[in-house]
């Protein structure tokens, strides 16, 4: 690692294996995966070789070493939140940092679990461990989301920006409003309910599932279509126009909602990962203080 820096500094430009983008997971040919893997392997080997009496626990000398390393790692991993606010290139680039964050974070599974000595209970110590595992699992979810969802997202967006999606919805709404003016109240009410429903509304669950059973636009479209079904198409019926516009709105809404769903899946893990990290830091603090308090 340390010897890497000067060698990399002498290079002109980045050396890429195949011209492909080198993501934070592959950074520097999986350098941090190798480091974290070796650390974990070493920890497991030592755990198996050191015969702690009467049974492995966090209070043995090896337990204290694992605990210290684990606590240091947790604090360092938290610092990514600070680090990401200043982007830098090079050997200690933010990407390298993120790569290390991911792999060293995963190695905490091994270090933290060995530190417990597989002794769990309803206490502050296990609380810290469980919070740590929640943070790690949410992080794994986040990494897998980042690895798979953007592809689906850009396929869905079809080169539309979010602003364009919003503007497109507004344009359809304006036309709907216009087209619905001559309608009798009952039909106008249908259109109005579609117009007045917040396309960005719905519960968190609806966001994440993309399932909106109470979509007014769909209901309006179905009702209008039912009314239209047996009428001759003369081309001068305002309801026909409204029907067409509602279909367009529905298609647009579907795209927006897919986008919202993917975006929510990309974001949701952080709502777990970040607050629980701080809960973990608090629990870690309580854990360490309590151990020395009742030494």
């Amino acid at each position, binding site marked *: 690692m340390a010897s890497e820096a000067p060698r990399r500094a002498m290079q002109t430009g980045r050396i890429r294996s195949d011209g492909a983008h080198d993501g934070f997971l592959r950074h520097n040919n999986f350098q941090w995966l190798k480091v974290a893997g070796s650390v974990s392997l070493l920890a497991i080997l030592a755990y198996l070789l050191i015969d702690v009496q009467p049974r492995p626990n966090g209070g043995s000398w090896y337990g204290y070493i694992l605990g210290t390393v684990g606590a240091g790692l947790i604090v360092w991993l938290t610092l990514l939140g600070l680090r990401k606010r200043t982007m830098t290139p090079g050997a200690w680039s933010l990407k390298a940092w993120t790569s290390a964050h991911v792999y060293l974070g995963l190695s905490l599974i091994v270090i933290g679990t060995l530190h417990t000595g597989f002794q769990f209970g309803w206490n502050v110590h296990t609380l810290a461990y469980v919070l740590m595992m929640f943070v790690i699992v949410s992080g794994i979810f986040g990494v897998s989301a980042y690895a798979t969802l953007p592809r689906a997202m850009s396929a869905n967006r079809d080169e539309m920006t979010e602003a364009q999606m919003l503007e497109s919805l507004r344009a359809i709404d304006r036309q709907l409003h216009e087209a619905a*003016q001559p309608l009798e109240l009952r039909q*106008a009410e249908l259109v109005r309910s579609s*117009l007045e429903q917040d396309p*960005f509304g719905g519960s968190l669950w609806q966001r994440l599932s993309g399932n909106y059973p109470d979509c007014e636009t769909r209901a309006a479209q179905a009702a209008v279509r039912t009314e239209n079904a047996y009428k001759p198409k003369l081309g001068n019926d305002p309801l026909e126009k409204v029907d067409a516009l509602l279909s367009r709105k529905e298609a647009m809404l579907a795209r927006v909602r897919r986008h919202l769903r993917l975006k929510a899946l990309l*974001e949701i893990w952080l709502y777990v990962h970040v607050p629980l990290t701080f809960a973990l830091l608090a629990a870690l603090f309580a854990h360490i203080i309590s151990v020395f*308090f009742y030494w």
Partner: protein
Amino acid sequence: MTFIVRQLSRTSEGREIVRTARHEADSIAIGRDASSEIHLADLAVELHHAQVKMQTGGELEIDSTCGLPFEIEGRSALQARIDPAVGAELRFGGHRIGVSAEDGAAVLTVERVEALSDASEAKEEIGLFTLKGLLPGRRPVAWSLIGAVLLIFLIWPIFTYATSHGVAKRSPGFHADRMWSSGPLSIAHKSLMNNCQACHVNKFEAVRDTACMTCHKDDAHAHADPARIALAKEPPGIGGRIKGLFQTAFNHPAGRCVDCHTEHEGAGRMPPTAQAFCTDCHGSLNTRLTDTKLKNADDFGTDHPEFMPAVTAGTDARGNRLYRRVSFNAHPVDNNGLKFPHAIHLARGGSIARMAQTMKADQGFGDSLACKDCHTPTADGTRFRPVEMERNCGMCHSLAFDRIGGTFRTLRHGDPAQVVADLRAFYRSTGPDRPISLGGMARRRPGDYAAAETSQDYVAGARAYGGQAEEAVQAVFSRGGACFDCHVVTPTGNGSAPFHIGKVYQPDRYMKKGWFDHNAHRSEACTSCHAADRSKAATDLLLPDLASCRTCHVGESGSRLKPVKTPVESSCAMCHDYHIDAGAPWLARQKVDRTKGHAQGRGTLASAR
């Protein structure tokens, strides 16, 4: 009648645009229909929603024409009267209509106050596509979690500690510092579960021995002189020195009770101490304690001194057994004061086996005698009750000397003087058997010489009968006599107690420093350790030596000198106790308890442990 209708709208910058229209009419219509004077392009408004009539006196009457209400000053109404001079505010769907008066004309100011659709409402577009608003923000959640965790898991327990400092026993119920417990307490300390301060006396101070000694005054006596223990300790290696540095830095001194008696390791019994704890001193003890009589012991499998059973070395003035510990290397014998060949008694053939077969129904013997026929285990199964003449030997060896009706009179075992007295009394109070030819009251006729001779012999015999007592006494205490067969008999020359029986010792422990539990060896045959079936003399010390134990027992980590078929890993604690007393070592007791499945006390201290 004049109505002035002002349509207000705003540019995207927010500038107002006012379009004014005058209507000279008695009434004007409000509706979505384009022909209405007040045209509201609002889907919440009916095509022909309401009519505004000018009444005499300048008041306006507003009537709903479609049956749908409108709002006036926030109230829903189908009809309303308004004085334009006073003014009012009407609301139709998303439009607001202000009513006022201007130069005798009624002014109706129309303004759209709601966006025509939700999407076109002015919203903050940043964050519109995010989860903002659907979930509580990350920061407030993080802060509240930090607060909650610290409050519940740190401040609350500290408060509990502060309020129960110095309390002997807390009230039952939940106390917050229980949440700090790193694991369940062992069975012995289970009752302290709610009283952390019983051991954790002062904050940030490791548990001190004084805390242990509040309960363990009697049973936690010193292993040896502390000064000598300090001297005996192996100097720490590099790892030990580093550990020592940390222990000093963190106020965690070594050598406290809790170094070995670790708590919070899970429910059940407290785990025994590792062998290293002993061998750190005893592995090379003589290099540091040069005056020690103890031999080095590093591992049972490879480095352990030969056993030194305590054999009888005579008696003291009061008749107590003196013992001497002799290594098996010196082939010790143990004179217990008896003559008893085990081999004959255990033989599968011969007269004793034959006799056992005849007594099967009476005594439950097998085809020949077995160890259990004479040796009864103690209640705890650790060792055997001493063999008793009346209960064990007496099954075959009778001390009967007289029969009165169906009752046998026996010599008193264990009381030689009484035996002598009984025999003398027997001869004094009885005569020789009366010849049958001496008929009862039949008168003898002269010339019947045979009868006269018999009579004279009988009388002479009866006169000398008492003198035979001494012969009988001699016989009992001499070779072939009842006592002499098993005991060492020495004549005393004393008339009343002419013979002395050597004291018999049946020691309950030969291994004074170690511990052996027969209960733990129930699966073994007696003869696999005790070669009793080949022993011809009572002085044979039928105890297994070190090599014999090593046929099964190996070191703590499985070390051994010879191949062992079914190795039993044995740490020091299996046979030795740190706080040596008369009871079984801790580990041995635990093992027995596990196999028996119930807790077993240790004498009077059971409750304290």
